């Protein structure tokens, strides 16, 4: 198989045709010179040569790549037959496109919510520390909050299982003052948050341990999306100051575009460091999610066991005040464990997990129905095309060749179905994302 030869096959065919013509001319002229009448001379020359068409075909066969040539022929023929019955083609392509499209849309959702890892360094290593069985509804519970701030500080200082730990919490706060006030999604992070995650700044610097201190915090980091849309993508050097939660903060850096925080489905706008309020931390607000990377060679199970050993002391030291003795006892018996957190946390996931899988199954079924439909259509068409196939068989087409031809046509339909899905997909997906299904998913990277 030679591509050079294949690509030049038409040129060679022309060349050989001219050469054959030159032979015939020379032979005819020689025949005339031998004394034949001109018409006889040309016929005799052709007899001498044999069949020029056969000779050219033989040379062409030498140059071409058989299966490629015939596949190309099949595809072109398939296109012509499709064009000759546009109604059938349109129905087939549209039903396929819809089936594939619905599947892709749902799968994209599922992928973003359920399957994709967080956009940080080695997300597989991340583990989240939670109370086994939850906190039984005691205290105040915030979304994504699993532990209290005092618990976090004890874990940070005492744990031996992790090479790095961090805590974060997410909530909605206000930016601006008076009538200018607006919501923003706040991400509160501990000093080690960005370092342990391995997130590198897009601009400026990210928050570090030095930013943790007494309230109010004075430095903040903006997400890429927020910086582009709300801060106009302004240069940080000019000093961007905002009023967040009634305090002046300076934007010191921007996170990279792919980093949306830890909660899939909820993007953050500004990240602020943890700060120590004047009247101390409350022991009854379960507001932070604590995560870490186990030390090299440590499995999550081993880290989990180490946390369990540490638990009694930690919980003993942080009993929330003002509860009845039974609750206190329950609190002291809580145990910590580590759970894999490579895909982050997600309220959307917890709420919609089952329905997403169900939806995927349903759309899979829809695709199946579309395929069955299509198979029916093809079958009906095949019986209508019996005459054409009989003619081709009679002309010497082999069964294999006919089969290839029909396969090429089906392949063409399927290909066009896929391509047909390509054009409406972003729109459809946008409808899915902005609709009832996940109203909060503005920053969702769902068209990608």
């Amino acid at each position, binding site marked *: 198989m030679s591509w050079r030869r294949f690509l030049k096959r038409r040129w060679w065919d022309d060349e050989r045709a001219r050469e*054959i013509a*030159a*032979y015939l*001319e*020379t*032979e005819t002229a020689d025949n005339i010179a031998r004394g034949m009448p001109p018409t006889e001379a040309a016929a005799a020359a052709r007899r*001498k*040569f*044999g069949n020029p068409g056969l000779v050219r075909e033989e040379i062409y066969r*030498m140059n071409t790549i058989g299966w490629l040539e015939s596949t190309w022929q099949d595809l072109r023929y398939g296109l012509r037959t499709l064009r000759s019955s546009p109604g059938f083609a349109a129905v087939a392509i549209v039903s396929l496109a819809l089936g594939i499209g619905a599947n892709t849309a749902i799968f994209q959702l599922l992928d973003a919510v359920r399957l994709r890892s967080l956009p940080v360094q080695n997300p597989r290593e991340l583990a989240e520390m939670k109370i086994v069985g939850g906190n039984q509804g005691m205290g105040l519970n915030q979304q994504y909050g699993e532990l209290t701030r005092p618990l976090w500080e004890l874990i940070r200082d005492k744990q031996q299982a992790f090479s790095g730990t961090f805590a974060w919490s997410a909530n909605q706060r206000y930016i601006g003052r008076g009538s200018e006030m607006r919501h923003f999604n706040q991400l509160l992070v501990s000093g080690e948050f960005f370092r342990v995650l391995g997130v590198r700044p897009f601009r400026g610097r990210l928050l570090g341990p030095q930013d943790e201190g007494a309230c109010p915090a004075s430095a903040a980091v903006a997400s890429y999306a927020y910086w582009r849309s709300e801060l106009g993508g302004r240069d940080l050097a000019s000093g961007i100051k905002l009023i967040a939660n009634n305090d002046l903060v300076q934007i010191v850096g921007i996170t990279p575009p792919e980093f949306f925080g830890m909660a899939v489905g909820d993007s953050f706008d500004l990240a602020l460091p943890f700060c120590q309020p004047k009247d101390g931390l409350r022991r009854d607000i379960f507001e932070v999610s604590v995560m870490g990377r186990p030390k090299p060679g440590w499995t999550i199970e081993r880290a989990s066991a180490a946390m369990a050993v540490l638990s009694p002391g930690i919980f003993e030291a942080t009993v929330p005040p003002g509860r009845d003795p039974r609750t206190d006892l329950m609190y002291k018996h809580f145990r910590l464990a580590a759970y894999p957190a490579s895909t982050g946390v997600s309220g959307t996931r917890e709420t919609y997990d089952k329905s997403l899988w169900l939806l995927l199954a349903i759309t899979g079924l829809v695709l199946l129905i579309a395929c069955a439909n299509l198979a029916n259509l093809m079958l009906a068409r095949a019986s209508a095309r019996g005459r054409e196939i009989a003619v081709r068989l009679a002309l010497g087409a082999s069964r294999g060749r006919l089969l290839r031809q029909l396969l090429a046509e089906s392949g063409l339909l399927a290909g066009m179905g896929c391509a047909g899905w390509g054009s409406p997909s972003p729109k459809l997906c946008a409808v899915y994302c902005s609709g009832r299904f996940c109203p909060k998913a503005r920053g969702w990277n769902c068209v990608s």
Partner: protein
Amino acid sequence: MGKKPAQTDILQGTLDLLILQLLAPGVAHGHTIAYAIERRSEEVLLVEHGSLYPALHRLEDRGWIASFWGTSENNRKARYYRLTAAGRKQLSVEMSRWERVVRAINQVLHPAEE
């Protein structure tokens, strides 16, 4: 095609060798080569001159001969062929193989002469 299978078989094996041999002294075009083979083989080989051309194409594709358009002795355009260096080497290879085959066949057919 079923009419003269024996001849096509012979052609398949030896046409390459014949062409290379004929081109050894100098350039020639298809018409000349065809007549030369026909004449020298006393009209046994190459009954249809057309079958020469696929062979020429094959040889040219392998780089054993090269071709160019020129003007023939009686002022007609014709495609001329000449032997390349690789072709010359191939000629001696094929020649010795052919002679080996002929000798072997002769030894089988006439064992007494051995």
